[in-house]
């Protein structure tokens, strides 16, 4: 379009040319600054500028802004342009505001007033400009200001179509930015829904987007849209392409409207009404049929438009998940696309098939394409397509094809893109565990995984391997054997050393009788890798060595020498030093029986949600296929929850307990592991009148050398703890008495006796204690204990209740 009168803005064109002709950034900057100065002057000049000039300068400012420079003036002039009655001036004004002033609060009210004026004008072009502005920068204030006018505009019979289109999307914007300010009451609902039937397809197209958002907020209120959507869709899909002249795109009738309607229907379950349902199914059938017809045009636009509708229809079919014939047909159609010349189609087919794989109706049909998918994995040149192939293999994996699929994934992993390796490792680990019939196979796969992609094997993965081995006694010797063999490789990944180190530490004895893997050989093999490892790994290996001392007394000396070696005994790494010293001491002072108890074999882990699944979901929060195929599990995290239903009391994460104790305001929460095992039983106890302290478990007092607070007594009825803080010779102490039963403990009295010498060595000063403890509650008694002289014995507490 050549410029018509009044719109020439020669000055702007010259300015743009000047900028383009600048040879350097400095020159450009100079030119811009020159112009900015000029514009500032013109704006400040006494005589007011005419509309054309204002428009031109505001437009220049806009151009400068779009080049990347800040503009901090001209706002007033832009807003002034809004009140012009010339379209071109208004347009520039609105544009400047939308682009530059979209977040500023100054003049907001003025802008809103101008918008209101334009909306109320009779000029549809002005109304449109105003609505577009609101749709571009609408916010809370605008929502409040126009909460009545715009819906009225949208649903009024007087409004012309283009204005309705803009009004619908305007409402959408306001609804998205501040739904509370925009109170769409139910009087509008029916009329908005009715827009689906509007003769003007553009209005319908815009309205569907609005309705989609409103449906998501209140599905029940808008459920009337389903019928209308189905019938509209049906009419379009069964029409001939000559019916919708203006809206036919490369021989496809209203493709975008169809896509939007199909998406709208995905907000609801399959229609209840049988006639609506069958109409919808016919519709979907027709779309699938049309996909089989020969292409009406060689242009890619035609097939893209047709396939856009097809893929959305398939999404709806998957969403409804009820018509097996449709699902199978969809699957077959996608199967054809898997080998299409166009990369786009292959990509989309793989993606959609992933969703189909999780539906029970189509899972089998999807599996038929296994070989094609595996070929795609090997031959596709776009990495994102290969990635979809991996996702699909993961989704279609079940007992029947697990071995093949895991093998293919492992092979692919060797050459896979680094960005996807971690995810692949997780997937392989999950699949091989889930479908392992023979856990020896599982172990082989996992060790191979560590060998191929050790860097991407996260901790959760190899922890899981250990957990599986620990829990399954039938594979423990196999595990030891292959761990040993794996270590013999000349270059061993550190994760492999960790796994093998742990396994040999626990189960090395199972292969010790074989001459090729005697204890000494095992130890030498591990130790040969020792110096190559990071401190964390070395710490783990030290624990293994300790376990070896227990398992293989014949090499005890040898190991002790290693522990005594300066690099460990005086290691600069605190953990290594501590372990070396402590393990050495342990090996020196413990009798064999005690050692055997301390270093007893690990008990089985309780079954919880696989941490690998948790990690996978973290990596791919948007993949929904996984959620469907895994059994629904509770969301307990891996090793931090203390769940009362634990049968085992041995917990390998001791630090978790202590943290919890110190964090709680109460001394010791009732949810610690020790107390839980007795929880169930405490309700049936009848209360004896007194209990003496000596008869039941007393926790060692030595632990108070390391901790400030802990339980000092516990049985089925009560728990006594102490928390102390010492400054100089005064210990501020709090005694906590916890009632573990379901009954009140009454007539509480506590008496701390200082026998003999203690009387002169310690001075106690304690508050009186409450006489009752409620069921499952704690009471606190604070006070001080003063140390007057050195003391040796311990005070005694006498606690009695009814």
């Amino acid at each position, binding site marked *: 379009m050549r410029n018509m009168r009044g719109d020439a803005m020669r000055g702007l064109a010259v300015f*743009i040319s000047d900028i383009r002709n600048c040879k350097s950034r400095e020159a450009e900057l100079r030119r811009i600054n020159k112009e900015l100065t000029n514009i500032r002057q013109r704006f400040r000049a006494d005589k007011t500028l005419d509309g054309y000039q204002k428009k031109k300068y505001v437009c220049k400012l806009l151009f400068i802004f779009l080049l990347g420079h800040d503009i901090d003036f001209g706002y007033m002039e832009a807003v002034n342009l809004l009140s012009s009655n010339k379209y071109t001036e208004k347009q520039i004004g609105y544009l400047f505001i939308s682009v530059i002033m979209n977040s500023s609060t100054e003049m907001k009210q003025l802008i809103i007033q101008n918008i209101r004026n334009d909306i109320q004008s009779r000029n549809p072009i002005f109304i449109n400009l105003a609505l*577009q502005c609101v749709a571009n920068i609408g916010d809370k204030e605008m929502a409040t200001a126009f909460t009545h006018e715009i819906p009225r505009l949208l649903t009024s019979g007087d409004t012309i179509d283009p204005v309705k*289109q803009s009004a619908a999307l305007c409402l959408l914007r306001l609804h998205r930015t501040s739904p509370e300010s925009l109170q769409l009451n139910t009087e509008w609902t029916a009329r908005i829904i009715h827009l689906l039937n509007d003769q003007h397809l553009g209005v319908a197209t815009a309205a569907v987007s609005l309705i989609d958002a409103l449906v998501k907020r209140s599905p029940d209120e808008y459920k009337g849209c389903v019928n209308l959507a189905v019938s509209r869709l049906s009419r379009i899909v069964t029409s001939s392409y000559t019916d919708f002249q203006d809206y036919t795109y490369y021989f496809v009738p209203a*493709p975008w409207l169809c896509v939007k309607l199909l998406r709208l229907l995905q907000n609801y379950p399959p229609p209840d009404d049988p006639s609506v349902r069958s109409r919808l199914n016919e519709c979907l059938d027709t779309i699938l049929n049309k996909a089989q017809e020969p292409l009406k045009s060689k242009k890619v636009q035609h097939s893209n438009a047709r396939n856009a509708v097809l893929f959305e229809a398939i999404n709806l079919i998957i969403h409804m998940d009820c018509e097996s014939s449709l699902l199978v047909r969809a699957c077959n159609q996608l199967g054809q696309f898997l080998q299409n010349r166009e*990369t786009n189609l292959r990509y*989309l087919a793989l993606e959609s098939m992933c969703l189909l794989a999780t539906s029970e109706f189509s899972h089998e049909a999807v599996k038929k394409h296994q070989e094609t998918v595996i070929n795609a994995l090997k031959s596709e040149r776009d990495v*994102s397509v290969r990635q979809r192939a991996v996702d699909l293999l993961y989704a279609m994996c079940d007992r029947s094809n697990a071995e093949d699929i895991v093998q293919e994934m492992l092979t692919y992993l060797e050459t896979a893109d680094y960005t996807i390796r971690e995810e692949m490792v997780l997937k392989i680990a999950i699949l091989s565990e889930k479908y392992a019939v023979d856990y020896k196979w599982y172990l082989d796969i996992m060790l191979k995984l560590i060998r191929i992609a050790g860097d991407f094997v996260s901790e959760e993965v190899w922890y899981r391997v250990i957990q599986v081995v620990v829990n399954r006694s039938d594979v423990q010797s196999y595990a030891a054997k292959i761990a040993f063999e794996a270590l013999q490789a000349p270059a061993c990944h550190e994760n492999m050393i960790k796994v093998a180190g742990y396994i040999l530490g626990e189960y090395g004895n199972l292969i010790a009788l074989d001459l090729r893997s005697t204890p000494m050989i095992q130890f030498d093999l591990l130790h040969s890798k020792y110096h190559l490892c990071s401190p964390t790994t070395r710490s783990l290996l030290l624990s293994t060595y300790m376990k070896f001392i227990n398992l293989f007394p014949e090499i005890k000396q040898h190991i002790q020498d290693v522990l005594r070696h300066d690099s460990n005994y005086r290691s600069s790494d605190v953990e290594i030093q501590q372990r070396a010293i402590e393990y050495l001491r342990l090996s020196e002072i413990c009798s064999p029986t005690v050692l055997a108890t301390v270093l007893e074999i690990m008990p089985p882990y309780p079954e919880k949600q696989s941490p690998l699944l948790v990690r996978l979901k973290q990596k791919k929060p*948007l993949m929904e296929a996984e959620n469907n195929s895994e059994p629904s599990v509770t969301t307990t995290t891996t090793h931090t929850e203390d769940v009362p239903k634990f049968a085992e009391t041995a917990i390998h994460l001791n630090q978790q307990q202590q943290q919890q104790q110190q964090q709680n305001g109460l001394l010791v929460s009732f949810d610690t592991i020790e107390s839980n095992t007795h929880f169930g039983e405490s309700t049936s106890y009848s209360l004896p009148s007194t209990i003496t302290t000596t008869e039941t478990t007393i926790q060692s007092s030595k632990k108070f050398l390391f901790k400030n607070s802990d339980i000092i007594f516990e049985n089925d009825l009560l728990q006594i703890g102490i928390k102390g803080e010492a400054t100089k010779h005064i210990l501020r102490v709090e005694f906590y008495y916890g009632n573990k039963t379901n009954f009140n403990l009454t007539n509480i009295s506590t008496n701390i006796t200082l026998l003999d010498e203690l009387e002169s060595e310690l001075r106690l000063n304690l508050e009186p204690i409450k006489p009752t403890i409620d069921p499952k509650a704690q009471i606190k008694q604070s006070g001080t204990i003063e140390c007057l002289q050195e003391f040796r014995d311990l005070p005694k507490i006498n606690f009695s209740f009814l």
Partner: protein
Amino acid sequence: MIRFILIQNRAGKTRLAKWFMNFHDDEKQKLIEEVHALVTVRDAKHTNFVEFRNFKIVYRRYAGLYFCICVDVNDNNLAYLEAIHNFVEVLNEFFHNVCELDLVFNFYKVYSVVDEMFLAGEIRETSQIKVLKQLTTLTSLE
């Protein structure tokens, strides 16, 4: 929904940036650079869709210009790919064989075209005939 529309040339100059959600100015600059880097390394063997942060970009190259639409992950790829083409055909008609310079010198008019076809992050009008008719009317105004 559409998050933003970008038209960039191979050198990285932005010829149009239309934002449908609120980003800060420096964020916008970062996004523009990232999209450019992402899209210019791809060739014919790649798909026209690429993951981008927690969205996706649907793009197509026309001569020296990349037209990119950033949409949500669950949006229909082919529909937006053709929406781009639809838009380009309108620009072509409106500017009589559009070239990059047309977009430079008439940048404020390009926004008008965009606003006719896309609004509030959704497709507003798809009929080329209707859009062009409206644009002709607007161009004739003072």
